[in-house]
């Protein structure tokens, strides 16, 4: 027989004013297994807790029920209190007499009846409680950062500086991501490369950071503290352990390809570094365009020219597996493919209609035009430039419904640069709204207006070429007039969309995505860098559009979370998880399919049945992965799985007690 103690809280007058406490106490005394009942003014207070502790000793209680406020409020408090007694912290049930009784009812008699029911329910449940123990899992103090843009670099540096080893995985041949493509950064107009490349070098040289470029995450298994990750090192055909980065191979390579880094406005070779300051500063061969590797010619010039002999045309993809304690995802974004959806802007047939990143390269001193703003079509300096904002953003009919957040500011920056770099230039900015929520942002926008940028409130409806000019037609919605601007160049500030391949990363780590494919944080307000998968964090634009300061802040936040995990040698697991009764398990595997965390796997186990040794397939729950939702329990046909803390027996007892 169990010995249950019941403690009813007045909560000052919060409960006592509506519920007849004396009657509840009286009724509780006759409930099954109840050996002691008392009421208390404030149970959660120090004397209230002491009273419970004393009663436990005096009446040899082995489990307790507290009738008080919501368990969401003080369950952790009382569990902590029990930890210092003989009773296991999980031998506790709370009857919600405040939020779900005294505060929502006025009829004293009915409220008291309900309170009695709620206490009876808790008493019935607690009778079936079992002591639960948190187990501890060891933590591998090594972090994986996926994505080598500014978010990934920042997260990796912060974790590495805290003293933990980090592997930084990037699928392109260099770190840097999008930020290193940019020219200047708003609102301070400091050179993007000047602040980004030192970070890249830091990451490349940090003793705690292993940079893995041309790599992609292939497989993830395990759980917080112990993720086993397989990384595919794509064949680069250059032995980076020997290569000195002298660059002779790049000069000699005969095959020219449009450069991704220069946004298609310049050429690179088939053996290449994406840009001069690349980290690592060593080339790779683009197999699709290499004449030797794609079989179009014998070539092999780079191999004959390389003084170090590091070209290896037989190079193959390698799979590297390692264990990580935590993962930061920083896969970033790309720009929406406006050409396929905006036929009215020429659908890409006019070379002088470019996107924002192309403009960044045009205006960048190390870009294809050495920083002179020149038209891609004829290399002439445009005198009249039109900037169109919200191309693909805030346009649910054609593009995306959301605001891409950074465009208002970089549109102002582009306008400023046009007016600064081109004499007698005219710059028109078509906008829906100007959103400048950030430190010193509004001032920057105002300065651009003072520079002479002409802001026209309205969307551009059509862009077409006539007599060598790009005619932009639109409406000035403030004056109600149609406007037509003859421009030499048009810059479309296009929407950010999640980087291609984000689905794969999300699936590997069981992270959910929102309707626009951005990775879903665990809570939009209070857990903005966590995901629903414990130990996996988000940094930067992969979670939603943001500018560089916000990206860096989020990256550091996720690094702090990772360091938090690494600060302990072991992690305590939640004991309220699923448990399999292998005797009952039929091995159907339904539970494994239902589990959203891939916490259940099937295993062959040996049993002795009728004196014979047999092998049967049964399911096992990984205590590190299980989050305790109980979906498997409801789905288990033989009733072999149960959820500790919310067992079938406990809930059925509650049902029975309430239906009395």
């Amino acid at each position, binding site marked *: 027989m169990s010995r249950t103690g019941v403690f009813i809280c007045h909560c000052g007058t919060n409960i006592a004013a509506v519920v007849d406490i004396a009657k509840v106490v009286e009724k509780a005394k006759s409930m099954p297994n109840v050996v002691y009942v008392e009421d208390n003014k404030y149970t959660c207070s120090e004397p209230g807790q002491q009273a419970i502790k004393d009663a436990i000793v005096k009446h040899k209680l082995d489990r307790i029920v507290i009738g008080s406020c919501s368990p969401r409020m003080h369950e952790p408090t009382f569990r902590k209190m029990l930890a210092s007694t003989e009773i296991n912290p999980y031998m506790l049930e709370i009857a919600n007499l405040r939020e779900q009784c005294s505060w929502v009812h006025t009829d004293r008699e009915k409220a008291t009846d309900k309170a009695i029911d709620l206490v009876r329910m808790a008493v019935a449940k607690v009778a079936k409680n079992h002591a639960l123990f948190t187990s501890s899992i060891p933590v591998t103090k090594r972090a994986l950062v996926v994505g080598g843009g500014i978010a990934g670099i920042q997260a990796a540096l912060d974790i590495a500086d805290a003293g933990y080893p980090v592997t930084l995985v990037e699928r392109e041949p260099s770190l840097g991501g999008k930020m290193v493509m940019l020219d200047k950064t708003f609102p301070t107009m400091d050179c993007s490369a000047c602040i980004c490349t030192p970070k890249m070098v830091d990451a490349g040289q940090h003793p705690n950071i292993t940079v893995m470029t041309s790599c992609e995450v292939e497989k993830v298994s395990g759980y917080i503290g112990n993720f086993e990750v397989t990384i595919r090192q794509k064949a680069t055909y250059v032995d980076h352990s020997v290569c000195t980065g002298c660059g002779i191979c790049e000069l000699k390579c*005969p095959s020219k390809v449009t450069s991704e880094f220069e946004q298609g406005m310049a050429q690179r070779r088939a053996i290449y570094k994406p840009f001069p300051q690349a980290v690592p500063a060593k080339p790779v061969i683009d197999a699709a365009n290499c004449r030797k590797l794609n079989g179009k010619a*014998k*070539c092999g010039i780079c191999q*004959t020219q390389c003084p170090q002999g590091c070209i290896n045309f037989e190079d193959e993809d390698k799979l590297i597996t390692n264990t990580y304690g935590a993962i930061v995802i920083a896969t970033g974004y790309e720009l929406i493919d406006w050409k396929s959806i905006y036929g009215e802007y020429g*659908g890409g047939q006019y070379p002088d209609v470019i996107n924002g990143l192309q403009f960044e390269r045009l205006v960048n001193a190390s870009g294809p035009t050495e920083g002179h703003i020149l038209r891609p079509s004829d290399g002439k300096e445009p005198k009249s430039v039109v900037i169109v904002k919200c191309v693909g953003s805030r346009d649910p009919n054609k593009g995306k419904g959301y605001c891409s957040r950074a465009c208002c500011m970089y549109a102002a920056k582009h306008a400023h640069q046009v007016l600064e770099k081109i004499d007698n230039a005219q710059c028109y900015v078509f906008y829906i709204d100007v959103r400048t929520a950030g430190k010193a942002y509004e001032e920057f926008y105002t300065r651009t207006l003072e520079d002479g940028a002409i802001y026209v409130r309205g969307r551009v409806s*059509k862009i077409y070429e006539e007599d060598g000019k790009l005619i932009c037609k639109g409406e000035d919605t403030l004056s109600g007039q149609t406007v037509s601007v003859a421009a030499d160049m048009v810059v479309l500030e296009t929407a950010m969309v999640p980087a291609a391949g984000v689905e794969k990363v999300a699936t590997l780590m069981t992270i959910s995505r929102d309707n626009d494919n951005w990775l879903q944080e665990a809570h939009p307000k209070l857990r903005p860098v966590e995901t629903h998968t414990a130990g996996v964090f988000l940094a930067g634009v992969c979670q939603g559009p943001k500018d560089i300061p916000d990206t860096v802040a989020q990256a550091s936040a996720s690094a702090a979370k990772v360091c938090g995990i690494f600060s302990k040698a072991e992690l305590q697991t939640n004991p309220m998880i699923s448990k399999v009764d292998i005797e009952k398990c039929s091995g159907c595997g339904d539970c494994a399919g239902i589990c959203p965390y891939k916490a259940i796997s099937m295993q062959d186990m040996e049993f002795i049945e009728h004196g014979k040794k047999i092998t049967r397939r049964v399911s096992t729950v990984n205590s590190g992965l299980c989050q305790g939702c109980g979906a498997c329990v409801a789905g288990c046909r033989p009733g072999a799985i149960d959820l500790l803390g919310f067992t079938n027996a406990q809930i059925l007892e509650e049902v029975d007690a309430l239906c009395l």
Partner: protein
Amino acid sequence: MKYSYYPGCSLSSTGLEYGLSTRYVAKKIGMELHEIPDWNCCGATAAHSMNHDLALALPARNLALVEKQGLGLEIAIPCAACYSRMKYAIQAARSSEKERQKIEEIIEMPYEAKNDAICLLEAFAREDAQAAVKEKIVKSLNGLKVASYYGCLLVRPAGVTQFDDNENPQSMDNLMTLIGAKPVNWAFKTECCGASHQVDAPKVARPLIYNILRNAKANGAEAIVTACPLCMMNLDMREFEFNKAKKEFDIPVYYFTELLGMAMGADPKELGMEKHFTPAVARIKEAFKRPPEEEKPIKKAKAKVEEVKEEEKPKEAIDNE
């Protein structure tokens, strides 16, 4: 190639030559057009700016007659406005049982929205028609530069018409290539011609026409091709009017069926081409006399594997730098 045929009012008045040329070409290529008996006006702009029910019932009566005809054919419609109205009626009846019943009540005929409507251009854009046209061509337009003008109603709203790309349609351009013309890449393919506002709001509407002509001219067009009697009338008549003030444009306007007919060897009079305001026959005759467009020999594919001699090529590569 068998269609129910709804000519619409224009084809017996301002768009007479559209009707004549359509009949001529259809007969040539063996396209059967079964005119709907007792058809009525589609309601055009007038109905739908006045009364929603009327705007659906007028075209629906014609569609109901097609069902009664029992041929089970798609309805080919030469006029873009008629086409648009029919498409709206079909969509309304298909998407709402309530609308369909209301239509039946008004037209006092059963109507189930069984048959689809297509524009005449779509009928000609289909593979079977293109193949038949190709067979009947006797003369080539020899690279005459034409600007295909679709107007707004053939391809818009995309959700209603579901025909061709609504910014840069290609079906008429393809037909023009078939008869030897050279479609120009221009930006006003689907701009509005001002429609009936050319009459009631000339100040606003005239510039629309002017801009269309100007862009066609700027892109080197020698002719404009249309598939709508109202676009045709507006462009043809107003160009003539502009030219009276200042001889600025020399771009005759044609129905695509007229050009097809001419390429099939028709006499311009058979097609009614003398009815144009801006003289149209001479340009075609002149094109027929041009030397045939040289078929540019396809550059001998450089696919031949570039053998790089391992000794020589590196030097060259170095020199390039």
